[in-house]
């Protein structure tokens, strides 16, 4: 008996340990609390994702730097020599939008099938399942940061100044991008469990979506005029990535004056001529909307999650 009591003293008391409840439906706050309590798992999953991707390759993570650098070099060559489209420094314009798009696309296309692919884990180990999709988003963020530094180095090399005054808007814009990407990733990962076609459909949708986003072309130059005439401009901005891409382009591409240029005797508009406050308020508004969207996404996931075991 003595042994038992001394062992009992060493162990922490369970009387006041928090009670966890497993029941049919968890409230949104419980879901969010569970998610945030498993941050360690999220980091573990992200690092293991990246490790697996570069396992056995000699250059490892360096590849993820080399490949955007080569892309950038190719674009530089192509657009400054073969395909001059009148936008000066087009490669910076292109790349500052492309890193935003790449992050969204990488995350969403890998998260779409993640629950189906890791069914063995989902059926055997208990953890908030959203984390699987969020880990894919996390890995996409790592690649995003690498591409961002490639862009930074490139700007340094060619001596192009970003719009320093706008730089502080970047975190807001990025937070909105993160929340939007995470929301889409979470919902798609759950929907794919029920509709396996989503994976293929998503590939097609992402292509279409890419062209609805002003990454390769200039919104002001090619679309703004006609959209305004038909009153469709606001429709174009329903795509949350548009504003984020424009913000990134404003920050990295356009230093103080370049909103337009004169090409072949015509004024060529490149970026919207909004003042800084417009960028700020629009991004702030977007961030708020994306915050709500994220909560909706977690709720939808919670509803869909209940029947995973019959579908996987």
């Amino acid at each position, binding site marked *: 008996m003595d042994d038992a009591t001394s*062992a009992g003293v060493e162990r922490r008391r369970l009387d006041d*340990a928090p009670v966890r*409840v497993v029941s*049919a439906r968890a409230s949104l706050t419980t879901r969010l609390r569970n998610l945030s309590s498993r941050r*360690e798992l999220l980091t573990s999953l992200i690092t293991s994702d990246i490790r697996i991707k570069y396992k056995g390759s000699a250059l490892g993570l360096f590849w993820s730097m080399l490949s955007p650098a080569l892309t950038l070099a190719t674009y530089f060559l192509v657009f400054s020599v073969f395909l001059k489209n009148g936008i000066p420094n087009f490669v910076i314009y292109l790349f500052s939008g492309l890193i935003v798009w790449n992050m969204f696309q990488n995350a969403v296309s890998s998260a779409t099938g993640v629950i189906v692919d890791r069914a063995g884990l989902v059926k055997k*180990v208990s953890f908030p399942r959203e984390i699987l999709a969020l880990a894919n988003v996390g890995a996409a963020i790592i690649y995003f940061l690498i591409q961002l530094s490639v862009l930074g180095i490139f700007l340094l090399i060619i001596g192009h100044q970003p719009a320093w005054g706008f730089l502080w808007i970047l975190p807001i814009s990025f937070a909105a991008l993160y929340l939007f990407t995470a929301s889409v990733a979470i919902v798609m990962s759950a929907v794919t469990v029920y509709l*396996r076609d989503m994976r293929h459909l998503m590939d097609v949708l992402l292509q279409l979506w890419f062209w609805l986003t002003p990454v390769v072309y200039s919104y002001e130059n090619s679309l703004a005029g006609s959209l305004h005439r038909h009153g469709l401009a606001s429709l174009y901005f329903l795509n949350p990535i548009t504003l984020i891409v424009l913000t990134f382009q404003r920050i990295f591409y356009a230093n103080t004056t370049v909103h337009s240029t004169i090409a072949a005797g015509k004024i060529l508009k490149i970026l919207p001529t909004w003042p800084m406050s417009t960028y700020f308020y629009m991004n702030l508004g977007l961030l708020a909307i994306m915050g709500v969207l994220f909560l909706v996404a977690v709720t939808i996931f919670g509803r869909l999650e209940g029947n995973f*075991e019959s579908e996987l």
Partner: protein
Amino acid sequence: MTTIIDVENVSKQFKIHHERHQSLKERLLHPKSGSTELFDALSDINFKVSDGETVGILGHNGSGKSTLLKCICGVLKPTSGEIRLRGSLAALLELGAGFQHELSGRDNVYLYGAMLGFSRKMIDGIFDDIVAFSELDHFIDTQVKFYSSGMYVRLAFAVAVNVNPDILVVDEVLAVGDERFQAKCIDRIRTFQEEGRSILLVTHNADTVRAICDRAIVLNGGKLIADGEVQDSLRIFREYLLGSAVEHDRTGVQANISIDAVTTPSGSFEVRNGAGMNFDVEITSESAYSGNFVMEVFTRSGLLVSRSDAQGAPVNLTPGHNRVSVGLAQIPLLDGVYDINVGVVDHHGSTVIAWREKAASIQVIYDGREGGIVELSPSIRQQ
């Protein structure tokens, strides 16, 4: 005693798809077809586990025991009802389910630990213990895909027991690994119990339950049919094993019968293959009872070799001491040790009145060259 697991009115229904339409085209073309049926995997389960208890969950395949365990671990959500848990929980539903084959053993320890909900810092502190327990010192930096299944399981088990959870949930994993590692696992579980932690163990091996558990729960068809002392629960589990589908009222059986001993006239339980054997079973009964005598022979690995006809051996027990003698005319078994279970069942052969597991073990000696359990002596001729 603090209640650390409280299962309250838990039911779980599964949807069974008869025709699966998972592609968009199929769903559009056949919006209505693909009938689903609801299947009650668990219905209205209630029980509690107190701090420091080791509880066995017994049941046949399909009885709902794994579903119940998954609900407790939070892998499945119950359709209705609630499960309240206190303290940390580590579950071994399938050893190594969280392992990433491309990663090294070391990386997987951290990843698996994170999946069980333990921090990196905590795993740092016990990493050496984990490696020592798993005996994988030389292979810890090898990718897991090169591990043998035994190594795989050892690593997973080592993580789960070394994170020192308050509740350990184990699903029939003790049957893996070599005998020495199994003994090590059992040892570890005993240490666990001594430390006053709780264990929930799912199995259909009665011996494991008897060896480890303080209490046992029996599930059948998704319903909880027994919750109590190991001996009582095992007896009820046995009844269902004997194939009774008939609902019966146990209160009608008052006979208090116990099986005291199994003896042989010579005192030896050794027998040569092909020879006969007799043994006596000593039974004490409080009151007169008419029923049937049943005998089972198992191999050491738990394979049923033979069960006697539960309706074909009537015994009339008188109050006091009784002796039943069993004669085996010729034993066709090959060499090995066989365990004998004996029991008394009612005259339908369905309700167990008294049961004794491993009442005796016989050692069979065989000189021939056949392999397996039974000697068939086939005559083989080329035509």
